[in-house]
């Protein structure tokens, strides 16, 4: 399983209720349903992904994340997961709010737009960064809300979202000591485990 998904799977208790936003081919849920007997659902809108999930026996619901999560009740899941989709939704702030309304906790992962390679392309070449993680050109990218770790943490602060845990990894989803010297410079992906704020 992909490194980031393994990290996430490790945080989910057996039998938990899990919602996976943008579940793709259902890799995480398939693993969790088999190994941890979770009651999991994935949302996706790609026809091929949905068919793949169905053929694996993963509970996949065709739903566009841009429509929000209004159809899910407050606290109806133990964990709401969204890997690598935050930057592609129309209203990321509202979606994160919704995730924390629907779930007890949530996990959000996204690529860092302040990684040094991105910075270098913009600063030295004067072009919009294109990388392995962000392979699209500016005109056809689905990533309409790219952010940096610093940006995201600022959002959490204003929204009084409790960051329970943060892990920053390289392009291979590995944690390296040097990354933590300056995560917003060396980190490729971040993984945030979020909880409701004490006052909410």
């Amino acid at each position, binding site marked *: 399983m992909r490194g980031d998904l393994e990290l996430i799977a490790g945080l989910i208790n057996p039998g938990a209720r899990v919602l996976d936003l943008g579940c793709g081919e259902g890799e995480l849920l398939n693993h969790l349903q088999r190994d941890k007997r979770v*009651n999991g659902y994935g949302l996706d809108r790609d026809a091929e992904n*949905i068919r793949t999930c*169905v053929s694996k026996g993963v509970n*996949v*619901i*065709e739903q566009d994340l841009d429509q929000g999560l209004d159809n899910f009740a407050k606290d*109806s899941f133990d964990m709401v997961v969204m890997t690598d989709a935050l930057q592609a939704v129309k209203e990321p702030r509202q979606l994160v709010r919704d995730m924390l309304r629907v779930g007890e906790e949530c996990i959000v992962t996204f690529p860092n737009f302040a990684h040094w390679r991105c910075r270098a392309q913009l600063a030295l070449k004067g072009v919009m960064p294109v990388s392995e993680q962000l392979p699209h050109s500016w005109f056809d990218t689905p990533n309409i809300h790219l952010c940096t770790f610093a940006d995201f943490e600022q959002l959490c602060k204003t929204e009084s979202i409790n960051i329970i845990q943060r892990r920053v990894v390289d392009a291979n989803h590995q944690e390296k000591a040097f990354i933590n010297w300056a995560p917003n410079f060396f980190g490729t992906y971040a993984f945030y485990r979020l909880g409701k704020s004490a006052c909410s």
Partner: protein
Amino acid sequence: MTQSKANSLGVVEPRRYQHNSEFWLQNGEQLHEYELVFETYGTLNADKSNAILICHALSGHHHAAGFHALDDAKPGWWDACIGPGKCIDTDQFFVLSLNNLGGCHGSTGPNSIDPNTGEIFGPSFPNVVVKDWVASQAHLADHLGIKKFVAVVGGSLGGMQAMQWSIDFPERVYAAVLIASAAKLSAQNIAFNEIARQAITTDEDYCSGNYQQFDKNPEKGLMLARMVGHVTYLSEDGMKTKFGRDVKSGNFAQGADVEFQVESYLHYQGRAFTQYFDANTYLLMTRALDYFDPAREFDGDLTRALEQTTTKFLVLSFSTDWRFSPERSQEIVDALIRARKNVASAIIESEHGHDSFLLPINRYTKILSAFLQRSYAELEDISRSSQTTQGDLS
């Protein structure tokens, strides 16, 4: 064989099931006996574990696939999906399709003789509801020795039957496929049914439902009912593509007698319907549609209605279906998630409105096939492991 007969089941023959004991209906009335006409496709395996039940919609019947005679112009109503190598693959599954109780294609219904009177039932045929259909289908399954279906599959009113199966006999349905269906009809939907009923019952040839006694048939009413139905089964864009403003006959220069293609289509469909469908059955079927609401017994809470089921679900809808819109399917999905049931859903892009569920749309057939294959594999796994467990104990 013609092109349309490739991958076909070829000639199929209807069979009959006679239920010889009394059958109590939900409304408290009883039938002393009843008969169901059905067809089967494919082969039932030795442990009778590969059966799929097809439930038909408003105007459907038992003849879902294959041909009754080699020179038939058209195959069964869901031949696009049922057959060797098709998405409901008869090389693998044993497919059962029947005409529901109250129908007019051979099962006991308004046209049958009431043993109490020796006369035709006509309008006095009891009101049957979806739950009654499911109970009678379960008797048919018993008769065929099928304890558990891999899946119960239905579109529209057929999807309602599949849902009712999952509530009434969860242990007998491993998976349910609800296509272009709803947990209950909307007011708008009931309204369309009422227009259809009014068209029939106000036709002077309806004769309070006793039209057969007078050797009449409320053709005008039935035709109108069917025409309204057809309009609601198509989408605006679909009608535009199919007919546009094309003229079938006459021309505008002469100013009169212009018949648009869409008019011609509706006339044809309406007229044809009067030749093969019974007015009293139409009334009965539309009422069954209107009354269906499994949440009613649970204070309107669909989640509670589904709480006891162990069935897994596939819920499919079509983007331009406004008669049974994707929102109605989403209500079912939301309730199933709240009840913590296994469910997958997809909204299939199609311009053909409600009629889409009858068509072999690529994405639709692929996902249906994937779900049935997966369900069958899971069910086989379960029975294998339970056999092992039993073996260990003995």
